[in-house]
C-alpha cells in the first residue's frame, strides 16, 4: 500500500473565500483544517483563467502553450499526457467525480468521450492509442460528470432527469435563446445569473458530487491505492444554490468587497489605466470571450447586486466545505486517513465585484489569478505544516501527485512538485509563475502573457483586435494589492518591466503551432 490521493477542486473560487485565507463570511472549517495541518500556498496561480485550459494544465502538468488547449472550446486530445494514467499504470485505482471539462460541453455531434459517456450512461470509455495500447479515457477507471445545473450530457443531469424531473426547471438556465451565456437577472436585486433555486439541498450538484465520491471510494478494497479527483462545479456562476440555504448569508448584511470601487468615476479611472479591452468590456462595447454574458453590461452592475452575488457565492462555498467534510468522515471510517494526501484548489478565480466586474476573461489580476491551494500531506509522511508564499502554479500538481505516489517526475510535465515550505521553494527555484490568454471568437482576437515574480505582476498584450502588442500591465503588489495602478508606461519602472518581460521571454514555453481548432464556445 502507498499513499492515497484525494484531489479536490472547485470551479471559479477566489483565494479570499476561505477562512484560512482571511475570508470572514463563509464558514469553511474543513478546508481551514486542511490548511492548518498542511501546506497553504498563498501565491498559487492558474496558467489560464478559464476552465478547459486550466484543467488541462492540472492533468498534464503542462502550460497551455504546450498542451494546446489555448481557449475554452478547444479539446484536450484524448491521447494527451495524463497524471491519472501515470498513476493507474503504477497500480492506482483512479476516478474523477464531478466537473471534468477537458472537452467541450456543447457537443451536439457527440465527438467527445465526455459527452458520449454520459449519454450512454457508462463511466469509462476505452481508447486505443497510436502504439496499440488500450486504456480508459484519460486514465480514469471511473468518470462521472457534473456541471453547473441539470442540463446537457453529464451524468448529474441524467440522474436528475431520472430521479427528480420536477426539479429540473429550478436551476438557472445558463444559456439564452441564442445559446449565449445568459444575462438574465434574478434574486432580490436582479443580479445576472442569480436565481432562487427550489431544489432540495441533497439533490444539488455539490452534494451529488460528494455522494458519488463516497460511493466510488466505498467500492474499493481497503488496501487499494487510489487517486480520486472530486471536482465541484461551484461556486462558478450561475449563482443558484438551494433556496433552503439562503438564510446562511443575508446579502443585505454584507459589506461591499474591498475590490469594488463604489464610485463609478473611480471605477472608470482605474479601468482607463489598463489596456483597452478592460474599459470596452465594462461599457459593453467589446465582449471578447464567451465566458461572460454577451448581453450584460458590467457598468450596469449595482452595489446591491455585488452584495447578492457575493452572498450566493459564500453559501455555495459553505456547501462545498460541508460536502468535503462528509467525504473526509467517510475516509476516516474506512481507516485510510493516515495514508491519504489531500490537495484542494480551484481552476481560476472570479471578479465578484472587483473593479465593478463579474465573471472572468482576459484579465490577469489577483481576482482571477490568485487561487486557494492547500496540500495536506498524509500524516504518515510526517510533513511539517507550513505557509508557502513563493509563487507556484497548477502546473506543479501532476508532478506532486507523482511524488506522493513515489513515482519519478513524469517526462511530460513542465514544473516540479510543489514545495514543502519557502526554504524548499527557494532551493528548488520557485521564483515565478506564468499565465497565458488566447481567444479568437468570430474575429475578436485577444492574447496576453503574464509573469508574476518578486511581488510584481507583468502582462504583455499580444497583437489582436484591440491591441498592437505595445500595451501591457505592471503592478507592484506591495504598494498596490488591488492592482489599481498600472505602471506599464511609468518610466521609473521601465527597468523592472523590461526585466520581467525578458524573464518571461526566456523561460515561458513556446506555443506549439498550429493552434488546434475551436470546436465549441465552451
Amino acid at each position, binding site marked *: 500500500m502507498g499513499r492515497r490521493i484525494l484531489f479536490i477542486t472547485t470551479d471559479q473560487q477566489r483565494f479570499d473565500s476561505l477562512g484560512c485565507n482571511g475570508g470572514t463570511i463563509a464558514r469553511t472549517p474543513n478546508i481551514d483544517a486542511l490548511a492548518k495541518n498542511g501546506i497553504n500556498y498563498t501565491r498559487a496561480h492558474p496558467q489560464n483563467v478559464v476552465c478547459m485550459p486550466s484543467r488541462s494544465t492540472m492533468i498534464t502538468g503542462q502550460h497551455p502553450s504546450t498542451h494546446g488547449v489555448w481557449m475554452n472550446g478547444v479539446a484536450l486530445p484524448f491521447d494527451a499526457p495524463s497524471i491519472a494514467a501515470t498513476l493507474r499504470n503504477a497500480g492506482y485505482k483512479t476516478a474523477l467525480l464531478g466537473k471534468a471539462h477537458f472537452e467541450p460541453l456543447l457537443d451536439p455531434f*457527440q*465527438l467527445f468521450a465526455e459527452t*458520449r459517456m454520459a449519454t450512454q450512461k457508462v463511466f469509462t470509455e476505452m481508447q486505443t492509442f497510436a502504439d496499440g495500447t488500450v486504456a480508459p479515457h484519460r486514465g480514469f477507471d471511473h468518470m462521472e460528470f457534473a456541471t453547473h445545473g441539470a442540463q446537457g450530457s453529464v451524468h448529474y443531469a441524467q440522474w436528475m432527469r431520472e430521479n427528480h424531473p420536477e426539479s429540473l426547471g429550478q436551476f438557472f438556465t445558463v444559456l439564452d*435563446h*441564442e*445559446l*449565449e451565456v445568459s444575462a438574465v437577472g434574478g434574486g432580490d436585486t436582479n443580479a445576472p445569473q442569480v436565481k432562487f433555486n427550489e431544489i432540495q439541498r441533497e439533490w444539488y450538484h455539490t452534494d451529488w458530487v460528494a455522494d458519488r465520491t463516497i460511493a466510488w471510494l466505498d467500492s474499493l478494497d481497503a488496501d487499494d491505492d487510489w487517486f480520486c479527483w472530486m471536482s465541484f462545479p461551484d461556486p462558478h456562476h450561475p449563482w443558484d444554490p438551494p433556496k433552503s440555504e439562503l438564510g446562511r448569508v443575508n446579502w443585505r448584511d454584507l459589506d461591499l468587497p474591498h475590490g469594488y470601487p463604489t464610485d463609478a468615476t473611480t471605477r472608470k479611472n482605474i479601468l482607463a489605466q489598463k489596456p483597452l479591452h478592460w474599459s470596452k468590456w465594462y461599457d459593453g462595447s467589446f465582449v471578447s470571450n464567451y465566458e461572460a454574458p454577451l448581453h450584460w453590461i458590467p457598468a450596469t452592475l449595482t452595489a446591491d447586486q455585488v452584495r447578492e452575488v457575493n452572498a450566493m457565492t459564500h453559501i455555495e462555498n459553505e456547501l462545498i466545505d460541508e460536502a468535503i467534510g462528509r467525504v473526509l468522515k467517510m475516509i476516516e471510517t474506512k481507516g485510510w486517513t493516515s495514508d491519504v494526501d489531500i490537495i484542494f484548489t480551484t481552476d481560476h478565480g472570479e471578479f465578484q465585484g472587483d473593479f465593478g466586474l463579474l465573471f472572468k476573461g482576459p484579465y490577469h489580476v489577483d481576482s482571477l489569478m490568485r487561487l486557494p491551494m492547500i496540500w495536506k500531506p498524509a500524516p504518515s509522511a510526517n510533513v511539517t505544516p507550513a505557509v508557502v508564499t513563493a509563487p507556484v502554479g497548477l502546473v506543479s500538481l501532476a508532478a506532486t501527485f507523482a511524488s506522493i505516489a513515489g513515482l519519478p517526475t513524469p517526462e511530460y510535465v513542465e514544473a516540479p512538485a510543489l514545495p514543502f515550505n519557502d526554504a524548499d521553494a527557494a532551493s528548488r527555484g520557485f521564483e515565478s509563475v506564468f499565465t497565458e490568454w488566447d481567444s479568437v471568437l468570430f474575429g475578436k482576437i485577444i492574447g496576453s502573457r503574464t509573469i508574476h515574480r518578486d511581488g510584481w505582476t507583468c502582462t504583455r498584450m499580444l497583437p489582436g483586435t484591440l491591441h498592437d502588442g505595445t500595451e501591457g500591465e505592471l503592478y507592484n503588489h506591495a504598494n498596490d494589492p488591488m492592482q489599481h495602478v498600472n505602471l506599464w508606461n511609468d518610466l521609473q519602472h521601465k527597468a523592472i518591466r523590461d526585466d520581467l518581460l525578458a524573464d518571461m521571454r526566456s523561460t515561458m514555453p513556446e506555443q506549439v503551432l498550429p493552434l488546434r*481548432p475551436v470546436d465549441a464556445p465552451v
Partner: protein
Amino acid sequence: MGSVRRSQHIKCSPDKAWQIIGDPSRLHEWFPIVSCRVEGNKRWISLANGLVFEEDIVLVDNYLRRFQYTIVNNPIVTQHLGTVDVIDDGHGECIAIYSTDMKPNVLALGIGAAAHNGLLKVKKILEGTI
C-alpha cells in the same frame, strides 16, 4: 452571424472527391451523423444524440463543385447557410472546404468541429487509408 470554415487537402482528383462530397445522400458516409435521408430538395439528418435536422438543399452545382444547404424548421437555428466546395489545387488534387454561416452564432463552432472530423474522414476514404 457565426461564421466558420474548415478545409482539407485531399490527394485525389476533384471529380473523385465530388462524387462523394457532392452527393447529399452520402453525407453519413463521412460526416459524424448516424443517417441521412433525401427526398427531392429536402434532407433530414440524424445525430447520435437523437436530434434530427431538416434541411433544404439550396444548390448542387456539378460545374463549380459546390453544394449548399440550409437548416429549416428548427426551433433554435434562425439563420443558416452551409457550403461545401471542392476546388482543384492546380496539381491534379483538391481541397475540400466546409463553410457555415448561422445564428445562433455559437452553433457554427459545433458544426465546424463536425466538419473538421468529417473532412478528415473523407480524406482517409478518398486516399484509401481507412
